[in-house]
Protein backbone atom coordinates (compact mmCIF):
# COMPACT_ATOMS: atom_id res chain seq x y z
CA UNK A 1 0.00 0.00 0.00
CA UNK A 2 1.27 3.47 -0.83
CA UNK A 3 2.27 5.52 2.23
CA UNK A 4 1.56 9.26 2.06
CA UNK A 5 2.73 11.69 4.74
CA UNK A 6 0.97 15.05 5.04
CA UNK A 7 2.83 17.85 6.82
CA UNK A 8 0.30 20.42 8.04
CA UNK A 9 -3.33 20.11 9.15
CA UNK A 10 -4.78 23.32 7.72
CA UNK A 11 -7.22 23.39 4.78
CA UNK A 12 -4.54 22.21 2.31
CA UNK A 13 -3.27 19.35 4.47
CA UNK A 14 -6.75 18.16 5.44
CA UNK A 15 -7.89 18.11 1.79
CA UNK A 16 -4.69 16.28 0.79
CA UNK A 17 -5.22 13.64 3.45
CA UNK A 18 -8.83 13.10 2.42
CA UNK A 19 -7.93 12.74 -1.26
CA UNK A 20 -5.09 10.33 -0.56
CA UNK A 21 -7.35 8.22 1.67
CA UNK A 22 -9.98 8.12 -1.06
CA UNK A 23 -7.41 6.40 -3.27
CA UNK A 24 -6.67 3.84 -0.60
CA UNK A 25 -3.32 5.20 0.57
CA UNK A 26 -2.01 4.74 4.09
CA UNK A 27 -1.98 8.33 5.37
CA UNK A 28 -0.10 9.93 8.28
CA UNK A 29 -0.83 13.59 9.04
CA UNK A 30 1.28 15.72 11.39
CA UNK A 31 0.58 19.20 12.73
CA UNK A 32 2.18 21.14 15.55
CA UNK A 33 -1.09 22.75 16.60
CA UNK A 34 -2.97 21.33 19.58
CA UNK A 35 -5.92 20.75 17.22
CA UNK A 36 -6.50 20.39 13.50
CA UNK A 37 -7.69 23.17 11.22
CA UNK A 38 -4.63 25.33 10.61
CA UNK A 39 -5.07 29.08 10.55
CA UNK A 40 -8.46 29.20 8.83
CA UNK A 41 -10.20 26.72 11.12
CA UNK A 42 -8.25 27.56 14.26
CA UNK A 43 -10.59 26.87 17.16
CA UNK A 44 -11.05 25.44 20.59
CA UNK A 45 -14.01 23.10 21.03
CA UNK A 46 -15.55 24.99 23.95
CA UNK A 47 -14.04 28.50 23.89
CA UNK A 48 -14.37 29.54 20.24
CA UNK A 49 -17.32 31.77 19.34
CA UNK A 50 -19.07 29.86 16.50
CA UNK A 51 -19.71 33.17 14.69
CA UNK A 52 -15.95 33.33 14.03
CA UNK A 53 -15.73 30.01 12.19
CA UNK A 54 -16.56 29.78 8.50
CA UNK A 55 -17.31 26.60 6.58
CA UNK A 56 -17.49 24.53 9.73
CA UNK A 57 -19.43 21.74 7.97
CA UNK A 58 -16.61 21.29 5.48
CA UNK A 59 -14.10 21.11 8.32
CA UNK A 60 -16.16 18.48 10.14
CA UNK A 61 -16.37 16.37 6.96
CA UNK A 62 -12.61 16.58 6.40
CA UNK A 63 -11.86 15.78 10.02
CA UNK A 64 -14.32 12.88 9.88
CA UNK A 65 -12.51 11.39 6.89
CA UNK A 66 -9.32 11.26 8.96
CA UNK A 67 -10.66 8.36 11.02
CA UNK A 68 -8.88 6.14 8.50
CA UNK A 69 -5.55 7.97 8.94
CA UNK A 70 -2.86 8.20 11.59
CA UNK A 71 -2.99 11.73 12.99
CA UNK A 72 -0.36 13.35 15.20
CA UNK A 73 -1.31 16.76 16.60
CA UNK A 74 0.92 18.73 18.94
CA UNK A 75 3.79 17.33 16.88
CA UNK A 76 6.46 19.70 15.53
CA UNK A 77 8.33 18.35 12.55
CA UNK A 78 11.97 19.44 12.97
CA UNK A 79 13.64 17.49 10.20
CA UNK A 80 12.52 16.35 6.76
CA UNK A 81 14.62 14.25 4.36
CA UNK A 82 13.99 12.65 1.02
CA UNK A 83 16.04 10.00 -0.80
CA UNK A 84 14.41 6.77 -2.03
CA UNK A 85 11.64 7.53 0.45
CA UNK A 86 10.63 10.38 2.75
CA UNK A 87 11.47 10.66 6.46
CA UNK A 88 9.88 13.23 8.77
CA UNK A 89 11.04 13.55 12.37
CA UNK A 90 8.88 15.22 14.98
CA UNK A 91 8.58 15.82 18.71
CA UNK A 92 5.07 15.41 20.08
CA UNK A 93 3.65 16.61 23.39
CA UNK A 94 2.83 19.87 25.17
CA UNK A 95 4.30 22.87 23.34
CA UNK A 96 7.99 23.37 24.22
CA UNK A 97 7.47 20.82 27.00
CA UNK A 98 10.14 18.80 28.77
CA UNK A 99 9.20 15.25 27.87
CA UNK A 100 8.02 15.15 24.31
CA UNK A 101 7.85 11.87 22.37
CA UNK A 102 10.08 11.45 19.37
CA UNK A 103 8.34 10.34 16.14
CA UNK A 104 9.79 9.17 12.84
CA UNK A 105 7.44 8.94 9.87
CA UNK A 106 8.45 7.02 6.74
CA UNK A 107 6.49 7.51 3.53
CA UNK A 108 6.62 6.99 -0.24
CA UNK A 109 5.50 10.57 -0.88
CA UNK A 110 4.88 13.70 1.18
CA UNK A 111 2.54 16.66 0.81
CA UNK A 112 4.04 19.82 2.31
CA UNK A 113 1.17 22.03 3.49
CA UNK A 114 2.88 24.17 6.11
CA UNK A 115 0.93 27.35 5.28
CA UNK A 116 2.05 30.87 6.01
CA UNK A 117 2.38 33.38 8.79
CA UNK A 118 1.70 37.09 8.90
CA UNK A 119 3.97 39.54 7.25
CA UNK A 120 3.90 42.65 9.41
CA UNK A 121 6.06 45.56 8.29
CA UNK A 122 7.94 47.40 11.04
CA UNK A 123 6.73 50.78 12.28
CA UNK A 124 8.45 53.00 14.86
CA UNK A 125 7.11 51.85 18.23
CA UNK A 126 5.99 48.41 17.03
CA UNK A 127 7.83 46.61 19.84
CA UNK A 128 5.52 48.18 22.46
CA UNK A 129 3.22 45.71 24.23
CA UNK A 130 -0.21 46.05 22.63
CA UNK A 131 1.10 45.81 19.07
CA UNK A 132 0.43 42.40 17.52
CA UNK A 133 0.12 40.98 14.05
CA UNK A 134 -3.34 40.94 12.51
CA UNK A 135 -3.12 37.13 12.59
CA UNK A 136 -2.37 37.19 16.32
CA UNK A 137 -5.43 39.36 16.91
CA UNK A 138 -7.43 36.81 14.89
CA UNK A 139 -5.90 33.80 16.62
CA UNK A 140 -6.43 35.22 20.12
CA UNK A 141 -10.03 36.12 19.34
CA UNK A 142 -10.81 32.72 17.79
CA UNK A 143 -8.79 30.38 19.96
CA UNK A 144 -8.76 32.15 23.34
CA UNK A 145 -11.79 34.45 23.16
CA UNK A 146 -9.75 37.51 24.14
CA UNK A 147 -8.57 40.81 22.64
CA UNK A 148 -5.39 42.65 23.52
CA UNK A 149 -6.97 46.09 23.83
CA UNK A 150 -10.25 47.88 24.30
CA UNK A 151 -9.61 50.25 21.38
CA UNK A 152 -7.76 48.64 18.49
CA UNK A 153 -6.50 50.09 15.21
CA UNK A 154 -6.06 47.59 12.37
CA UNK A 155 -3.45 48.61 9.80
CA UNK A 156 -1.89 46.88 6.80
CA UNK A 157 -3.18 45.60 3.50
CA UNK A 158 -5.41 42.92 2.03
CA UNK A 159 -8.88 41.49 2.55
CA UNK A 160 -7.68 39.61 5.66
CA UNK A 161 -7.97 42.88 7.63
CA UNK A 162 -11.76 42.58 7.33
CA UNK A 163 -12.29 39.29 9.21
CA UNK A 164 -9.77 40.52 11.76
CA UNK A 165 -11.82 43.67 12.38
CA UNK A 166 -15.00 41.61 12.61
CA UNK A 167 -13.47 39.16 15.10
CA UNK A 168 -12.14 41.96 17.27
CA UNK A 169 -15.55 43.63 17.32
CA UNK A 170 -17.36 40.38 18.17
CA UNK A 171 -14.85 39.61 20.91
CA UNK A 172 -15.40 42.97 22.58
CA UNK A 173 -12.79 45.43 21.32
CA UNK A 174 -13.84 48.64 19.69
CA UNK A 175 -12.13 48.86 16.28
CA UNK A 176 -11.24 52.50 15.80
CA UNK A 177 -10.43 52.07 12.13
CA UNK A 178 -9.17 49.72 9.44
CA UNK A 179 -6.31 51.38 7.56
CA UNK A 180 -5.63 49.79 4.17
CA UNK A 181 -2.32 50.96 2.69
CA UNK A 182 -3.36 50.52 -0.93
CA UNK A 183 -5.03 53.51 -2.49
CA UNK A 184 -8.59 53.47 -3.79
CA UNK A 185 -7.15 53.55 -7.32
CA UNK A 186 -5.01 50.42 -6.73
CA UNK A 187 -7.97 48.65 -5.13
CA UNK A 188 -10.20 49.51 -8.07
CA UNK A 189 -7.60 48.35 -10.59
CA UNK A 190 -7.18 45.07 -8.73
CA UNK A 191 -10.76 44.26 -7.82
CA UNK A 192 -13.19 45.83 -10.28
CA UNK A 193 -12.24 44.00 -13.48
CA UNK A 194 -13.66 40.49 -13.76
CA UNK A 195 -15.70 40.45 -10.54
CA UNK A 196 -16.91 36.91 -11.32
CA UNK A 197 -13.49 35.61 -10.28
CA UNK A 198 -14.50 36.55 -6.77
CA UNK A 199 -17.20 33.88 -6.76
CA UNK A 200 -16.98 31.96 -3.52
CA UNK A 201 -14.90 34.56 -1.74
CA UNK A 202 -17.43 37.28 -2.59
CA UNK A 203 -20.05 36.09 -0.11
CA UNK A 204 -17.54 36.07 2.71
CA UNK A 205 -16.25 39.54 1.78
CA UNK A 206 -19.76 40.98 1.63
CA UNK A 207 -20.40 39.58 5.10
CA UNK A 208 -17.26 41.29 6.47
CA UNK A 209 -18.14 44.61 4.85
CA UNK A 210 -21.60 44.37 6.41
CA UNK A 211 -19.96 43.67 9.76
CA UNK A 212 -17.83 46.81 9.42
CA UNK A 213 -20.96 48.83 8.78
CA UNK A 214 -22.85 47.22 11.66
CA UNK A 215 -20.04 47.95 14.11
CA UNK A 216 -19.50 51.43 12.58
CA UNK A 217 -15.87 50.65 11.78
CA UNK A 218 -14.35 53.12 9.30
CA UNK A 219 -12.41 51.56 6.40
CA UNK A 220 -9.73 53.95 5.09
CA UNK A 221 -7.83 53.02 1.94
CA UNK A 222 -4.59 54.84 1.24
CA UNK A 223 -3.61 55.21 4.89
CA UNK A 224 -1.53 53.47 7.52
CA UNK A 225 -0.34 53.55 11.08
CA UNK A 226 3.13 55.09 10.64
CA UNK A 227 4.13 55.35 14.30
CA UNK A 228 3.00 53.81 17.57
CA UNK A 229 3.26 55.93 20.71
CA UNK A 230 3.53 54.99 24.37
CA UNK A 231 5.87 54.61 27.33
CA UNK A 232 5.61 50.98 28.33
CA UNK A 233 2.55 50.02 26.26
CA UNK A 234 0.50 51.36 23.36
CA UNK A 235 -1.19 54.67 24.21
CA UNK A 236 -1.86 56.09 20.73
CA UNK A 237 -0.95 55.71 17.08
CA UNK A 238 -0.12 58.16 14.31
CA UNK A 239 -2.02 57.53 11.10
CA UNK A 240 -1.02 59.16 7.79
CA UNK A 241 -2.29 59.14 4.22
CA UNK A 242 -0.07 57.25 1.76
CA UNK A 243 0.69 57.83 -1.90
CA UNK A 244 0.48 55.03 -4.48
CA UNK A 245 3.96 53.80 -3.49
CA UNK A 246 2.90 53.68 0.19
CA UNK A 247 5.02 56.74 1.08
CA UNK A 248 3.45 58.78 3.90
CA UNK A 249 2.22 62.15 2.61
CA UNK A 250 3.74 64.91 4.78
CA UNK A 251 1.22 66.96 6.72
CA UNK A 252 -1.47 64.26 6.81
CA UNK A 253 -0.47 62.76 10.18
CA UNK A 254 -3.18 62.38 12.80
CA UNK A 255 -2.80 61.04 16.33
CA UNK A 256 -5.46 58.58 17.46
CA UNK A 257 -5.86 57.30 21.01
CA UNK A 258 -5.91 53.50 21.24
CA UNK A 259 -4.46 50.71 23.39
CA UNK A 260 -3.80 48.09 20.71
CA UNK A 261 -2.59 48.02 17.11
CA UNK A 262 -2.91 45.00 14.81
CA UNK A 263 -0.52 45.02 11.82
CA UNK A 264 -0.84 42.77 8.76
CA UNK A 265 0.65 43.44 5.33
CA UNK A 266 0.07 40.02 3.83
CA UNK A 267 1.52 36.59 4.49
CA UNK A 268 4.84 34.89 4.11
CA UNK A 269 5.04 31.16 3.38
CA UNK A 270 6.62 28.75 5.87
CA UNK A 271 9.24 27.35 3.54
CA UNK A 272 11.49 25.56 6.04
CA UNK A 273 10.27 22.03 5.35
CA UNK A 274 10.20 22.50 1.59
CA UNK A 275 13.72 23.95 1.63
CA UNK A 276 15.10 21.10 3.64
CA UNK A 277 13.41 18.62 1.28
CA UNK A 278 15.40 20.34 -1.47
CA UNK A 279 12.38 21.79 -3.30
CA UNK A 280 13.06 24.53 -5.85
CA UNK A 281 11.74 27.94 -4.86
CA UNK A 282 10.43 30.59 -7.26
CA UNK A 283 10.09 34.33 -6.87
CA UNK A 284 12.00 37.34 -5.79
CA UNK A 285 13.10 38.34 -2.33
CA UNK A 286 10.07 39.01 -0.21
CA UNK A 287 7.75 36.79 -2.29
CA UNK A 288 9.36 33.36 -2.54
CA UNK A 289 7.19 30.26 -2.84
CA UNK A 290 7.60 26.53 -3.44
CA UNK A 291 7.62 25.89 -7.18
CA UNK A 292 4.97 23.36 -8.25
CA UNK A 293 3.73 22.06 -11.60
CA UNK A 294 0.09 21.44 -12.53
CA UNK A 295 0.16 18.25 -10.46
CA UNK A 296 1.31 20.20 -7.37
CA UNK A 297 4.59 18.28 -7.69
CA UNK A 298 7.75 20.08 -6.56
CA UNK A 299 11.20 19.73 -8.12
CA UNK A 300 11.46 16.42 -6.22
CA UNK A 301 9.01 13.85 -7.62
CA UNK A 302 8.26 12.41 -4.15
CA UNK A 303 7.42 15.81 -2.71
CA UNK A 304 4.14 17.67 -3.36
CA UNK A 305 3.20 21.09 -2.01
CA UNK A 306 -0.19 22.73 -1.54
CA UNK A 307 -1.78 25.80 0.02
CA UNK A 308 -0.15 29.04 1.05
CA UNK A 309 3.40 27.64 0.69
CA UNK A 310 2.88 27.76 -3.09
CA UNK A 311 1.20 31.19 -3.24
CA UNK A 312 -1.18 33.29 -1.16
CA UNK A 313 -4.72 32.56 -2.35
CA UNK A 314 -6.83 31.90 0.76
CA UNK A 315 -8.51 28.81 2.15
CA UNK A 316 -10.47 27.82 -0.99
CA UNK A 317 -7.29 27.75 -3.07
CA UNK A 318 -5.58 25.76 -0.30
CA UNK A 319 -8.43 23.20 -0.25
CA UNK A 320 -8.32 22.74 -4.03
CA UNK A 321 -4.55 22.43 -4.21
CA UNK A 322 -4.53 20.04 -1.28
CA UNK A 323 -7.08 17.77 -2.95
CA UNK A 324 -4.99 17.64 -6.13
CA UNK A 325 -1.70 17.10 -4.27
CA UNK A 326 -3.08 14.33 -2.06
CA UNK A 327 -4.66 12.54 -5.01
CA UNK A 328 -1.44 12.60 -7.06
CA UNK A 329 0.75 11.72 -4.06
CA UNK A 330 -1.37 8.60 -3.58
CA UNK A 331 -0.69 7.59 -7.18
CA UNK A 332 -3.78 9.08 -8.84
CA UNK A 333 -3.85 10.68 -12.28
CA UNK A 334 -4.47 14.34 -13.04
CA UNK A 335 -6.91 13.21 -15.77
CA UNK A 336 -9.17 11.44 -13.27
CA UNK A 337 -12.67 12.93 -13.44
CA UNK A 338 -12.75 13.23 -9.65
CA UNK A 339 -10.26 16.10 -9.93
CA UNK A 340 -12.41 18.18 -12.25
CA UNK A 341 -13.90 20.21 -9.38
CA UNK A 342 -10.63 21.02 -7.57
CA UNK A 343 -8.91 21.85 -10.88
CA UNK A 344 -11.63 24.39 -11.73
CA UNK A 345 -11.46 25.98 -8.29
CA UNK A 346 -7.66 26.15 -8.49
CA UNK A 347 -7.84 27.93 -11.84
CA UNK A 348 -10.28 30.49 -10.48
CA UNK A 349 -8.37 30.99 -7.25
CA UNK A 350 -5.04 31.51 -9.03
CA UNK A 351 -6.64 34.41 -10.87
CA UNK A 352 -7.94 35.64 -7.52
CA UNK A 353 -4.44 35.43 -6.02
CA UNK A 354 -2.96 37.46 -8.88
CA UNK A 355 -5.56 40.16 -8.30
CA UNK A 356 -4.89 40.08 -4.57
CA UNK A 357 -1.24 40.78 -5.25
CA UNK A 358 -2.08 43.52 -7.74
CA UNK A 359 -4.44 45.32 -5.39
CA UNK A 360 -2.65 44.80 -2.08
CA UNK A 361 0.97 43.80 -2.77
CA UNK A 362 3.56 45.65 -0.70
CA UNK A 363 4.89 48.82 -2.38
CA UNK A 364 8.44 49.95 -1.69
CA UNK A 365 7.72 53.41 -0.28
CA UNK A 366 6.80 52.00 3.14
CA UNK A 367 10.42 52.23 4.31
CA UNK A 368 9.92 56.02 4.42
CA UNK A 369 7.95 55.66 7.65
CA UNK A 370 10.96 54.14 9.44
CA UNK A 371 13.44 56.20 11.47
CA UNK A 372 17.15 55.33 11.41
CA UNK A 373 16.84 53.87 14.89
CA UNK A 374 13.57 51.94 14.36
CA UNK A 375 14.02 48.35 15.52
CA UNK A 376 13.56 46.04 12.53
CA UNK A 377 14.74 42.70 13.94
CA UNK A 378 12.64 42.34 17.09
CA UNK A 379 14.60 39.42 18.57
CA UNK A 380 18.01 41.08 18.53
CA UNK A 381 16.88 44.71 18.68
CA UNK A 382 18.63 45.60 15.40
CA UNK A 383 17.84 49.06 14.00
CA UNK A 384 17.32 49.99 10.37
CA UNK A 385 20.60 51.90 10.28
CA UNK A 386 22.65 48.87 11.33
CA UNK A 387 21.11 46.83 8.50
CA UNK A 388 21.84 49.55 5.95
CA UNK A 389 25.43 49.78 7.09
CA UNK A 390 26.11 46.13 6.28
CA UNK A 391 23.81 45.89 3.25
CA UNK A 392 26.63 45.32 0.78
CA UNK A 393 28.02 42.29 2.59
CA UNK A 394 26.94 38.76 1.62
CA UNK A 395 23.93 37.53 3.63
CA UNK A 396 25.91 35.54 6.19
CA UNK A 397 28.32 38.37 6.88
CA UNK A 398 25.44 40.85 7.06
CA UNK A 399 23.73 38.70 9.69
CA UNK A 400 26.89 38.28 11.74
CA UNK A 401 27.79 41.97 11.58
CA UNK A 402 24.34 43.33 12.41
CA UNK A 403 22.88 40.28 14.23
CA UNK A 404 19.64 40.71 12.26
CA UNK A 405 17.87 37.37 11.91
CA UNK A 406 20.09 35.56 14.43
CA UNK A 407 17.60 35.55 17.31
CA UNK A 408 15.17 32.80 18.26
CA UNK A 409 12.76 33.47 15.38
CA UNK A 410 15.63 33.16 12.89
CA UNK A 411 14.43 36.06 10.76
CA UNK A 412 10.90 34.76 10.31
CA UNK A 413 9.49 38.07 11.55
CA UNK A 414 11.94 40.58 10.04
CA UNK A 415 13.01 38.74 6.87
CA UNK A 416 10.96 40.69 4.36
CA UNK A 417 11.82 44.07 5.93
CA UNK A 418 15.54 43.30 6.18
CA UNK A 419 15.69 42.22 2.54
CA UNK A 420 13.83 45.32 1.39
CA UNK A 421 16.06 47.65 3.43
CA UNK A 422 19.18 45.92 2.06
CA UNK A 423 17.90 46.13 -1.51
CA UNK A 424 17.06 49.83 -1.17
CA UNK A 425 20.54 50.47 0.23
CA UNK A 426 21.99 48.90 -2.91
CA UNK A 427 22.71 45.42 -1.52
CA UNK A 428 21.68 42.06 -2.97
CA UNK A 429 19.77 40.07 -0.36
CA UNK A 430 19.54 36.32 -0.84
CA UNK A 431 18.27 33.31 1.08
CA UNK A 432 17.48 34.99 4.40
CA UNK A 433 15.11 32.09 5.09
CA UNK A 434 17.55 29.14 5.09
CA UNK A 435 17.27 27.48 8.48
CA UNK A 436 18.80 24.11 9.31
CA UNK A 437 16.17 23.12 11.89
CA UNK A 438 12.53 23.48 10.90
CA UNK A 439 10.92 23.99 14.28
CA UNK A 440 12.34 25.04 17.63
CA UNK A 441 13.60 22.09 19.66
CA UNK A 442 15.60 21.77 22.83
CA UNK A 443 19.26 20.78 22.73
CA UNK A 444 18.52 17.91 25.11
CA UNK A 445 15.90 16.58 22.71
CA UNK A 446 18.34 16.82 19.84
CA UNK A 447 21.01 15.04 21.88
CA UNK A 448 18.53 12.26 22.63
CA UNK A 449 18.28 11.67 18.87
CA UNK A 450 21.92 10.84 18.28
CA UNK A 451 22.55 7.18 17.70
CA UNK A 452 19.29 6.32 15.95
Amino acid at each position, binding site marked *: MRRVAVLGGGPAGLAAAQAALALGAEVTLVDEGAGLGGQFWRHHDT*ITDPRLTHGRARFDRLRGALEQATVHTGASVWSADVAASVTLRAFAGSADGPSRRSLAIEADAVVVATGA*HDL*ALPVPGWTLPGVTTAGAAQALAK*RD*GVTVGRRTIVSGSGPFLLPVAQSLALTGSQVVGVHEASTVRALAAGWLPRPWQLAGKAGELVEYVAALARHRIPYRPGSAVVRVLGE*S*RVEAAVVASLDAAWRPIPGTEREIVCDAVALGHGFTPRLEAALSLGCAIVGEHGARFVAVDDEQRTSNPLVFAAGEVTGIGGADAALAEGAIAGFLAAGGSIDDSRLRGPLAVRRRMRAFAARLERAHGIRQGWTDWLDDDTVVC*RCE*GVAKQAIEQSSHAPMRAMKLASRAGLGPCQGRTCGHAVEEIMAQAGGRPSGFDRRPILAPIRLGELAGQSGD
Partner: protein
Amino acid sequence: MIRITVDDERFEGRDGQTIAGVLIGAGRIAWRTAQTGERGVFCGIGVCHDCLVTVNGLSGVRACQRAASDGDVIEREVRA
Protein backbone atom coordinates in the same frame (compact mmCIF):
# COMPACT_ATOMS: atom_id res chain seq x y z
CA MET B 1 -11.71 27.37 35.48
CA ILE B 2 -7.95 27.23 36.00
CA ARG B 3 -5.58 29.22 38.20
CA ILE B 4 -1.97 30.05 37.44
CA THR B 5 0.58 32.37 39.04
CA VAL B 6 2.81 34.72 37.12
CA ASP B 7 5.66 36.35 39.02
CA ASP B 8 3.72 35.54 42.23
CA GLU B 9 0.53 37.21 41.01
CA ARG B 10 -2.55 34.99 40.61
CA PHE B 11 -4.59 34.77 37.42
CA GLU B 12 -7.79 32.90 36.59
CA GLY B 13 -8.54 31.66 33.11
CA ARG B 14 -10.88 29.40 31.18
CA ASP B 15 -9.99 25.76 30.84
CA GLY B 16 -8.33 25.33 27.45
CA GLN B 17 -6.92 28.83 27.05
CA THR B 18 -3.26 29.30 26.27
CA ILE B 19 -1.05 30.99 28.87
CA ALA B 20 -1.11 34.10 26.67
CA GLY B 21 -4.91 33.90 26.49
CA VAL B 22 -5.24 33.73 30.28
CA LEU B 23 -2.94 36.71 30.80
CA ILE B 24 -4.47 38.88 28.10
CA GLY B 25 -7.96 37.97 29.31
CA ALA B 26 -6.92 39.35 32.71
CA GLY B 27 -5.62 42.57 31.15
CA ARG B 28 -1.92 41.71 31.39
CA ILE B 29 -0.31 42.23 27.98
CA ALA B 30 3.45 42.17 28.76
CA TRP B 31 5.39 39.44 30.54
CA ARG B 32 8.89 39.30 29.12
CA THR B 33 11.76 41.80 29.24
CA ALA B 34 13.71 42.01 25.99
CA GLN B 35 16.71 44.18 25.09
CA THR B 36 14.43 46.95 23.92
CA GLY B 37 11.73 46.73 26.59
CA GLU B 38 8.68 44.76 27.63
CA ARG B 39 7.07 42.23 25.30
CA GLY B 40 3.98 40.04 25.20
CA VAL B 41 2.29 38.41 22.21
CA PHE B 42 3.27 39.47 18.70
CA CYS B 43 2.52 36.69 16.15
CA GLY B 44 0.22 34.57 18.30
CA ILE B 45 1.01 31.40 16.35
CA GLY B 46 4.39 30.27 17.62
CA VAL B 47 6.62 31.90 15.03
CA CYS B 48 8.15 35.05 16.58
CA HIS B 49 9.21 33.89 20.08
CA ASP B 50 8.31 37.26 21.60
CA CYS B 51 6.09 35.60 24.22
CA LEU B 52 8.60 33.30 25.97
CA VAL B 53 8.08 32.46 29.65
CA THR B 54 9.47 30.00 32.17
CA VAL B 55 6.81 27.43 33.09
CA ASN B 56 7.28 25.33 36.24
CA GLY B 57 11.02 25.91 36.03
CA LEU B 58 11.41 25.18 32.33
CA SER B 59 12.52 28.23 30.33
CA GLY B 60 11.79 29.12 26.71
CA VAL B 61 8.12 28.11 26.54
CA ARG B 62 5.96 29.99 24.03
CA ALA B 63 3.02 31.38 25.99
CA CYS B 64 0.89 31.59 22.83
CA GLN B 65 1.32 27.87 22.12
CA ARG B 66 1.21 26.26 25.54
CA ALA B 67 -2.20 25.52 27.04
CA ALA B 68 -2.37 26.76 30.63
CA SER B 69 -2.71 24.03 33.26
CA ASP B 70 -4.21 24.55 36.68
CA GLY B 71 -1.41 25.34 39.13
CA ASP B 72 1.21 26.39 36.57
CA VAL B 73 3.90 28.60 38.08
CA ILE B 74 5.14 31.07 35.53
CA GLU B 75 8.11 33.40 35.66
CA ARG B 76 9.18 36.29 33.50
CA GLU B 77 12.28 35.94 31.35
CA VAL B 78 14.73 38.81 31.18
CA ARG B 79 17.21 39.44 28.42
CA ALA B 80 19.95 41.96 29.10
